[in-house]
C-alpha cells in the first residue's frame, strides 16, 4: 500500500504539485493520468525522495529513504534511458543488483522475462526506446518487489510489447502487488487500470475506479436501431429524452436509462433491431475532466498554416 499525504512542490512561483493526497492499493493496477505538465513525474519523484517538497509518502508505513535495500520492496523506473551508454545491459542490472544484495542469477532471469536475453551483452546506446523500456522494466522487477512505480512504461513499445506489459502488470496486481503506473495511452489504461489518480496543474481531479471516472465526467447514451426511427424519436422526446439521429439512421438517446427506452418501445409496439448502452471511453472522460487544466495547448493545423478553415456543409449550401 502506498499512502501519499499532502504532496506539494513549488518551482519559484509555480506550484507543480498542489496538496496531493491519495492511496494506491495492493492487488490493483492504479493508473496515474494528467495532461502534459500536470505534475505526474514530479509527483513520482517526490514519492521516491528524488525531489524535495512538502508532504510524505509511505510504502507500507515507511518512507522510501528509510527502506534498506529498496529494490527488494519497490521497483521504480521514471526514465527509460537512464543508463550509461557503454555499460552492457547485464552489467547495468548487475551494478544495481549489487547494491541490494540481489544475486546475479536474478539479472539473467529478468532479462529473459523482458525478452532481452539476446542483447544482454550489448551496450544499450544502440537500443530503441522500446528496448530501453524493457530494460527499465527488468530493472524494476530485479528485486521481485511488492510495489511497482512506473512512469510511462508503454512509451515506445510496439503493440505486442504493450500487450505483454499489460499482462505482466495485471498478473502482478492479481498476485497482490501494488502497481502505480502513468501513461498517455488512454485506451491501454482503460484495459489495464482498475483505479485512477487523475491530476491537472498539480491538483487532484479524481481518485477512484475507472468506471466511476467515466461515469462522473461523461454521460452515457442509449443506442437504438429501429425501422420506425422517426416515430420513436418523437415518442422519446415526448418522454423527456434528448435524441440525436446518427448518419446510419440509428438514434442516440440521452436522459433515459436503457431499460426505460426498452419499456417505451415495448409499450408502443416499436420493433427494435438494437438496444445498447453507449458508454463513453476513458479518453472522452479524460478530455472532459482535464480540458480546463491543460497547460500546453496546441493550435489547429489550419491556424498554424494560416489557412482558412474548411467550409462546412452550411457554407456550401449558402454559396
Amino acid at each position: 500500500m502506498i499512502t501519499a499525504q499532502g504532496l506539494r512542490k513549488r518551482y519559484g512561483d509555480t506550484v507543480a504539485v498542489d496538496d496531493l493526497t491519495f492511496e494506491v492499493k495492493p492487488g490493483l493496477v492504479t493508473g496515474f493520468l494528467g495532461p502534459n505538465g500536470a505534475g505526474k513525474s514530479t509527483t513520482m519523484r517526490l514519492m521516491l525522495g528524488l525531489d524535495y517538497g512538502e508532504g510524505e509518502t509511505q510504502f507500507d508505513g515507511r518512507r522510501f529513504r528509510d527502506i534498506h535495500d529498496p529494490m527488494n520492496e519497490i521497483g521504480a523506473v521514471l526514465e527509460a534511458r537512464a543508463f550509461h551508454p557503454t555499460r552492457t545491459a547485464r552489467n547495468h542490472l548487475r551494478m544495481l543488483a549489487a547494491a541490494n544484495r540481489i544475486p546475479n542469477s536474478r539479472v539473467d532471469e529478468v532479462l529473459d522475462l523482458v525478452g532481452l536475453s539476446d542483447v544482454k551483452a550489448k551496450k544499450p546506446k544502440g537500443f530503441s526506446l522500446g528496448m530501453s523500456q524493457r530494460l527499465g522494466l527488468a530493472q524494476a522487477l530485479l528485486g521481485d518487489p511488492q510495489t511497482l512505480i512506473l512512469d510511462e512504461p508503454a512509451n515506445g513499445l510496439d503493440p505486442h510489447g504493450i500487450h505483454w506489459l499489460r499482462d505482466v502488470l495485471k498478473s502482478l496486481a492479481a498476485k497482490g502487488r501494488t502497481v502505480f503506473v502513468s501513461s498517455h495511452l488512454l485506451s491501454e489504461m482503460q484495459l489495464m487500470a482498475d483505479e485512477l489518480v487523475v491530476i491537472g496543474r498539480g491538483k487532484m481531479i479524481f481518485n477512484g475506479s475507472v468506471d466511476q471516472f467515466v461515469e462522473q465526467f461523461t454521460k452515457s447514451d442509449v443506442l437504438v436501431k429501429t425501422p420506425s426511427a422517426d416515430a420513436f424519436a418523437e415518442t422519446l422526446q415526448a418522454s423527456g429524452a434528448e435524441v440525436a439521429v446518427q448518419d446510419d439512421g440509428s438514434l442516440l438517446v440521452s436522459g433515459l436509462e436503457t431499460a426505460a427506452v426498452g419499456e417505451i418501445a415495448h409499450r408502443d409496439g416499436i420493433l427494435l433491431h438494437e438496444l445498447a448502452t453507449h458508454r463513453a471511453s476513458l479518453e472522452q472522460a479524460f478530455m472532459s475532466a482535464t480540458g480546463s487544466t491543460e497547460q500546453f495547448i496546441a493550435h489547429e493545423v489550419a491556424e498554424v498554416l494560416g489557412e482558412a478553415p474548411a467550409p462546412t456543409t452550411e457554407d456550401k449550401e449558402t454559396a
Partner: protein
Amino acid sequence: MSDALRFEWARIRTIRSTYWLFGLGVLITAIIAGILAYVTRNDDKTGEVGSWVLLGGGEFATFIPIFVAIMGIFATGHEYRFGTIQPTLTTLPQRSALLLSKLLVVVAVAVAMVAVSLAINLGIAAIFWGEVPDLGSEPLNQVIPGYVVYIVLNAILGVALGQLFRGVPTAIVVLLVTPLIVETLVIGLSNVPALDWLIPAVKFLPFNAGARLIATTPANEAFGPDSAQYEIFERWAAGGVFAAFIAIILAVAWFLFQKRDA
C-alpha cells in the same frame, strides 16, 4: 554502507573509461620514465633524478593526477550526464553513503594506479640503470609519500567537482583551466609592480600549492630566483592549502547533494 561500496565497485569496474584512464596514465608515465631513465643512465643517481624517473617527470608528473581526477569526475558527473542518478538513488536512497562510497572507491583505484605506476617505473629504472633509486634518500623519501597524497587529493577533487557541477564538461574545464590559466595569470600579474599586492595570495593558489607535494626543489626556488618574495609554503603546509581547497569544494558539493533535487 557496504551496499553502496558494492554498487560503486561494480559501477567503476563496468565502464571502459576506468580502464583506459588507468592504462593510459600508467603507460604514458612509464614512457616518460623510460626516456628519463635512458637519458640519465650515465648521470649521478641522485634522489632528484630518481624522482624524475619514478614519478615519470618529477615535479611535472601530471598525467596520473589529472587522470584520477577525471576518473573522479566521471564517478559523479556521469550520474547526471546519463541520467543514472535516478536508478542509483532509487537503489541507494542514502545520499551520504553513496557519495562516501564513490570517494572511497575512486581513492582506492587511484592508490592502486599510483602503486602500479611506481612499481613499473622502478622496474624501468632497474633496466636502464642496473640499479633502483634509493627510496630513503632526499628528496625521494618526501616526494613518494607526497605523490601518493597528491594523487589521492586529485581523486577526491574530481569526485567533488563532478558532484558540484552535476556533469562532466564544466568539472573538467575547471580542473584544467584553473591551474593552467587562472593561477598562471595571477602569478604573472603579481610581477606587475602596480599589482604586487597579489604576491601574498600566490602561496594560497590551490593547484600550485598542491604541486609542491611532489616538488624536488626548495620552496624558495619554486618560481626561479625571485621566488623568496612569494614565501611559498613548504611541502606539507602547501599540501594543506590544496587539501583545504578540496575540502571546501567537497563540503559545498556534499551539502548541495543533500539539499537539491536529484
